[in-house]
């Protein structure tokens, strides 16, 4: 993150609760070190639930909710958590938030809960959440930690949204379940709603990201 330490958060000018790292943290999570397209984390769920745009967005929302909540509490407890059991404590906090989200989904959004199946529960093992708690929240103050959880959740949600958009559109000719490409002339490409379609879509998305950022050319210079 050495490349933009001159950037000071516009809202607090470096003296507020986000320690002057607000904008940088957001930018890192959503774009510079995007958890899916750069770090290639959380792939299991990114491949499994993105056959519909709606599912992708709900899954993204779940990650934002769990990420923000987990980072907040891990950060709040960072000075009182014994190092030896810190990972167990993190998992307990993550699991609590995941189950809360899952229960709410089951109560108020039954259809979606059925479609996402086990993948909401599996956020407990999502590398993004655990990774951010370990790498960021454990050594940063609560507000900026929440921002980091939000940024990484957003980064995940944006990538899933894009993949879900293309998979649903190409795979069924619909968006949010509404037919947008005429059924009389458009033949749905069923590969896109199968698992291999997710691999192909994600592959092309990462290739596009790399082409835009030129990330492969920067490699080796160090940061």
């Amino acid at each position, binding site marked *: 993150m050495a490349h933009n330490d001159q950037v000071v958060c516009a809202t607090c000018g470096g003296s507020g609760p986000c320690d002057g790292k607000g904008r940088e943290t957001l930018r890192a999570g959503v774009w510079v070190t995007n958890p899916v397209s750069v770090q290639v984390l959380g792939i299991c769920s990114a491949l499994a639930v993105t056959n519909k745009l709606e599912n992708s967005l709900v899954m993204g929302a779940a990650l934002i909710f769990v990420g923000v909540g987990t980072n907040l509490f891990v950060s709040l407890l960072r000075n009182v958590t014994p190092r030896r059991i810190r990972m167990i404590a993190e998992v307990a906090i993550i699991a609590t938030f995941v189950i809360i989200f899952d229960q709410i989904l089951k109560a108020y959004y039954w259809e979606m809960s059925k479609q996402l199946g086990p993948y909401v529960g599996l956020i407990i093992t999502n590398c993004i959440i655990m990774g951010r708690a370990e790498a960021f929240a454990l050594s940063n103050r609560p507000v900026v930690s929440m921002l980091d959880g939000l940024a990484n959740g957003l980064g995940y949600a944006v990538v899933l949204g894009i993949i879900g958009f293309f998979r649903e559109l190409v795979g069924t000719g619909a968006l949010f379940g509404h037919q947008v490409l005429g059924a009389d002339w458009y*033949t749905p*490409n*069923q*590969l*896109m709603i*199968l698992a*291999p379609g997710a691999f*192909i879509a994600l592959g092309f998305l990462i290739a596009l990201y790399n082409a835009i950022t030129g990330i492969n050319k920067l490699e080796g210079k160090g940061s």
Partner: protein
Amino acid sequence: MKLILTLLDKTRPLFQEGGRFAALKPIYDAADAFLFSPLTRTSRAPHVRDPLDVKRYMSTVIIAIAPCLLAAIHFFGLRVLAMVLVSYAAGGAVEVLLAMFKKEEINEGLLVTGMLFPLILPPGLPLWMVALGSAFGVLVGKELFGGTGRNLFNPALIGRVFLALSYPRAMSAGWIEPGQGLVGRALEYATDAVTMATPLAAAKSGTWAALPKLFFGNVTGSVGETSALAVLIGGAFLLIIGIANWRTVAAMLGTFVIVTAGIYSGDPHAIIWHLLSGGLLFGAFFMATDPVSSPIMNSAKWVYGAIIGIATALIRNFTGYVEGVMFAILLGNIFAPVLDELFVTAHVRRLREEG
């Protein structure tokens, strides 16, 4: 011809680096190389992997495919030619665009892929699907791996597997009934022809097509694969010239016969029937022997062929799919680099122990 040559030579500076049409250099080079011999010669694989130069290799394969193509036109009509043209156009467009993007030359690989691809499709497939499959095969199957000579999988098969998974309904409904008689459908375009089940699909429900029909190709199936006779003529030609490696073919067909014999407890009719039906022979001579996606070591080719032969027999008889050659060859392709690695290491160790 002289006129074209002088024209090409004169306009060369325009297409070089810094010239007015530098972006179109790949097209210029392709025209130049196709009509005359190129100024620069290929120095990378598959040139290194095979004693022939790439262009000669490609043209020989095209000649060997001719009998299959003619048989296909006879049985399924002029539509076959349209499929070939569309396949070339779509694959070519992707090649040209990528060559311009990567500022490289267009390579000759498409000459063979573009011809093989339509021959492994159902004859009644909509032309836009042919175009899409060809483009996908070239882009994902070949160019993303680095172009001709670097692809892990056979690009034509990648295109077909893409279509089979994307449009299963169209791919299982495009089996046109073959034309009968001396002329067949050679003079028709055959768009409204009746479709029927392929011999392998029919066999699953108990109807076995007659052997002579399978041998001459008077059955439905993928465009170029139905006539065992035509495939054998072209295949024999490739074997004699030495382009198709006989070890791969022998291992693949040999193991296929052994496994099939085991399944049908040695019934000779069933073995010959399975040998002649579906895409087995076409796959053995034209697809599995592709020098790029098969192993280089001769000893590895035996194992490679055996993997394909066994997998084909197993998929045909024990899964929901009626034909397994496509998956079997792709499976073999996955193993090819590993097999080379194993056999090279073993070979080096043996040499070291001796010396």
